[in-house]
């Protein structure tokens, strides 16, 4: 005959087993039960608490009514709920305008940040960063700002939208290479770039085999120059290197007669018929004009 202590132990064991089985049954039921129907309409101001509630309850359906565009965190949260089995729907209580903003370092020695944004509709738009408002537009639209510095993320916000972006890292700028013949154009191109803060290397042709040079000169490659600016046909002797530089990802500006250099045809602009424009040798037009007859007599 079991002792009293043994009887107590058996009863306790039975009770504990029953409790454990009941708990397992409850958990199994909770895991396998179909989601409860829960249609809820909330304004954006209440959305965080509603999202917390829905996360615990796992409703079959979410209905959200927004009065402004949701931020990225809210969008991600709703998307996660939808992936976990809740059917998510949203509607707007009023027209919500789309907007976009991007901030990236300008390719300028000044280290400025270029902010571009666009906002549909005619709502006033405020552009700002962590330090405060930078500018406002009274009627939305698209605009571009060049800012000397930006604090934290940049946002464009209106009554029904907010778009934000983090400014990308700065870019390392290398010297520019200017190629041209001695003259007004090359002189002022170089001077203007230097005034803007660029480091400029230049090869200015003065005579066959005579060039006036300045700055760090070497092979034309993307490791050495940020861009190559060819002002005229004197760049022909470097055409192969310039074309290779462009194909490697370097920026090339072809001005004037440099766009007609045969060796640069693979990177030169083309007209709509797909042929490179060609205007004949330099001075041909003037020569033709000078030879024109006027009233039967040469002018």
């Amino acid at each position: 005959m079991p002792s009293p202590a043994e009887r107590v132990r058996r009863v306790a064991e039975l009770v504990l087993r029953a409790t454990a089985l009941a708990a397992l049954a409850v958990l199994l039921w909770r895991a396998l039960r179909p989601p409860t129907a829960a249609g809820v309409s909330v304004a954006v101001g209440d959305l965080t608490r509603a999202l917390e509630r829905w996360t615990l309850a796992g409703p079959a359906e979410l209905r959200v009514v927004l009065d402004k565009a949701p931020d990225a965190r809210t969008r991600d949260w709703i998307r996660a709920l939808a992936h976990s089995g809740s059917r998510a729907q949203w509607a707007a209580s009023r027209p919500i305008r789309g907007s976009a903003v991007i901030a990236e370092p300008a390719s300028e020695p000044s280290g400025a940040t270029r902010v571009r944004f666009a906002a549909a509709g005619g709502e006033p738009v405020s552009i700002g960063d962590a330090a405060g408002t930078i500018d406002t537009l009274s009627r939305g639209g698209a605009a571009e700002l060049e800012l000397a510095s930006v604090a934290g993320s940049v946002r464009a916000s209106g009554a029904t939208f907010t778009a934000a972006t983090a400014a990308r890292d700065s870019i390392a700028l290398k010297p520019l290479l200017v190629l041209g013949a001695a003259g007004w154009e090359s002189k002022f191109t170089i001077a203007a770039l230097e005034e803007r803060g660029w480091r400029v290397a230049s090869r200015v042709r003065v005579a066959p085999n005579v060039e006036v040079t300045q700055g760090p000169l070497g092979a034309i490659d993307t490791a050495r120059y940020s861009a190559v600016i060819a002002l005229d046909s004197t760049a022909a002797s470097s055409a192969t290197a310039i074309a290779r530089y462009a194909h490697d990802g370097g920026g090339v500006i072809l001005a004037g007669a440099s766009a007609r250099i045969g060796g640069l045809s693979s990177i030169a602009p083309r007209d709509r018929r797909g042929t490179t424009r060609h205007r004949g040798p330099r001075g041909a037009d003037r020569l033709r004009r000078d030879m024109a007859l006027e009233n039967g007599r040469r002018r």
Partner: protein
Amino acid sequence: MSEFVFATGQYESGDWDSAPLVPANLIDSLAKYTSLPVAPTGAIVALASDDLFRFPLVYLTGHLPVRFTEAERANVRRFADRGGMLFVDDHNHDIDGAFHKTAVEELGRAVGKLTQLANTHPLYSSFFKFPDGPPNTAHELNGWGDNLVHSHLLAAMRGDRIAVLYSNKDYSSEWGYHPDNKRFLSIDNTKFGVNVIVYALTR
């Protein structure tokens, strides 16, 4: 690319047109030694005119006292500030003559004090090499003038660029002959003029 036009500056006082053969002679040299596109004839531009800013280099000479008008002075200052180069040559090749005294004073008022240009300045190697600085002129050497050689040119700078180059070596007389007569010279004496033009177009 636009061709280089050699411009002679015209000012109200003095005899700005005292060296009419110099432009043609320097144009000839530029075409002969360089591949720069150059207009076959020079131009005359009034210092008070906005046309001044169409030219990268303006040549100024004369024998008589120089006194700029207010408009000329303001334009010369803007021209120097905005990248142009003024080449002024004393046609008298003297040290303390009327042109020299008044031109230096007037240029000082317009663009700032003229100072001696080092004979190692890049101007002297911008095309031809002049290791001893500005080449001497026949008038300096033969004693016909003041019998003294001017060892340096003067300049007013903008940064490290020459904005005004001043000479009292009388290159205006030295270069004042028909280009065809270069064939009689054993050494072309206009080569320094090419340096001045090339410097003005590249710096």
